[in-house]
């Protein structure tokens, strides 16, 4: 009992630390570097060696700035909204399997929990948009809600496809079930593609970044947000980006498993290494896409979800079910 409590507290502390450093700080830097690379620039280079301390400096700057509450804003909701977004993103880390046995809690309904927690983010965004008392923010919030609710379905169905093939909802056991039986590969492949597209939309990134499209809505739902709360939104956004990538790795890329199961240092260290390597690779992919493609129109965006991805993922789920049932 006591040991379990200590373990949970310890792992929460570790996860928080990791999210603060390895995700929020590092990913912002990585995004800037990647965008620079895509646009043939150099990117931040003055603060620290090769500009590595740039985000830390930015954070310090943000902390010093003044909180601004827009006129007519709802004080309570305005404050709660970024917290909801950040907490929802952080809660999803509970079921990420970092390595063999390295997980905060291996829930029996792991992937469902993940989807459920991520879906809470929408509420925060919607509230933020309303509480700002600003038409751009409100429009951004509404767009975001429509978009995330739409793309949750294909995302959920592609997660369920893998769960059906692996025969479990637990993230750890899904990793253990890989590689999947050969006959389910077309299903898994399709589910992976759908997942990638839907995940991009879920995390409001280009080409699905309509909720915060600068050229139309200033900055969308967080137009009115300043220093720390803005940082919380950033934390939530990059936190969920990392978590989604990690889930992709868990579901489709073998989780903590290395190629051919070659041992190096030890199972835990190897697992952590491979998991982080793959996750950052997927994150890189998302960034690469973001800085390469233009933006969809809102009707195109909804059409892609309801008319293409949803039927496709449903059919794929059915196919996977048939394949699993057929194999007995």
């Amino acid at each position, binding site marked *: 009992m006591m040991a379990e409590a200590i373990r949970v507290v310890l792992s929460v502390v570790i996860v928080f630390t990791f999210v603060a450093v390895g995700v929020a700080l590092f990913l912002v830097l990585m995004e800037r570097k990647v965008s620079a690379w895509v646009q043939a620039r150099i990117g931040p280079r003055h603060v620290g060696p090769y500009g590595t301390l740039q985000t830390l400096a930015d954070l310090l700057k943000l902390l010093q700035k003044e909180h601004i509450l827009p006129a*007519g804003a*709802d004080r*309570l*909701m305005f404050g*709660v909204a970024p917290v909801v977004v950040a907490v929802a993103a952080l809660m999803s880390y509970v079921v990420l399997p970092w390595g063999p046995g390295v997980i905060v809690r291996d*829930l*029996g*309904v792991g992937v*469902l*929990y993940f*989807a*459920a*927690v991520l*879906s*809470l983010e*929408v*509420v925060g965004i*919607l*509230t933020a948009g*309303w*509480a700002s008392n600003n038409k751009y923010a*409100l429009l951004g*919030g*509404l767009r975001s*809600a*429509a978009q*995330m*609710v739409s793309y*949750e379905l294909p995302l*959920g169905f592609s997660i369920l496809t893998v769960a059906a093939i692996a025969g479990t*909802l637990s993230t750890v056991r899904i990793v253990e079930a890989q590689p999947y039986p050969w006959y389910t590969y077309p299903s898994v492949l399709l589910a992976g593609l759908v997942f990638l597209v839907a995940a991009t939309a879920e995390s409001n990134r280009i080409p699905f970044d309509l909720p915060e499209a600068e050229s139309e809505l200033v900055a969308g739902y967080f137009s009115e947000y300043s220093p720390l709360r803005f940082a919380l939104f950033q934390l939530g956004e990059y936190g969920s980006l990392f978590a989604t990538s990690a889930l992709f790795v868990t579901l489709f890329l073998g989780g903590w498993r290395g190629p051919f199961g070659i041992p190096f240092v030890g199972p835990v260290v190897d697992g952590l290494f491979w998991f982080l390597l793959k996750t950052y690779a997927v994150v890189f992919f998302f960034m690469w896409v973001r800085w390469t493609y233009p933006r969809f129109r809102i009707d195109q965006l909804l059409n892609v979800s309801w008319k293409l991805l949803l039927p496709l993922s449903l059919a794929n789920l059915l196919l996977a079910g048939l394949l699993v049932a057929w194999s007995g």
Partner: protein
Amino acid sequence: MAEAVAFYGLTAVALGASLVVALSRNMVHAAVSLIPVLLSVAGYYVLLGAEFVAAIQILIYAGAITVLILFVILLTEGATGVRVRPRNEQVSLGALVCLFLAALLVAVLTRTPWPQTQGALPEYNPGAVGQSFLTAYVLPFEVTSLLIVACLVGAIVVARREA
């Protein structure tokens, strides 16, 4: 002990937030307060060993229905912040009836000698639920899915702007 703490904490949140839902003059506050209620109920489910139901509760209720409600509030007059009269003329009588009903229900529920069993919940919840859905309860399952389709179509037809 821990269970008791968790239960009373959840109950406090659930009832408090539900009072906000029922009483708040601000529609958005009411809708957002729905989320703690739903999450607390999900917490109840976890305490009761129904992890799967809890996950679905968060996914559907908190993640989808609440968003839908918020969406509608924002699309209709709730978003404009017009302070209209929030309650109708039967508040006092309604409150009386509700209190009386609550008292009666509590009295009935606590005094009834419910049968208690020593059986245990199945080990893996989603599996058991899925088995039940596809064997003993396949008819309710199918009927529900038909109903969902009908509601989808109905909702679209009702809400569509006439061309």
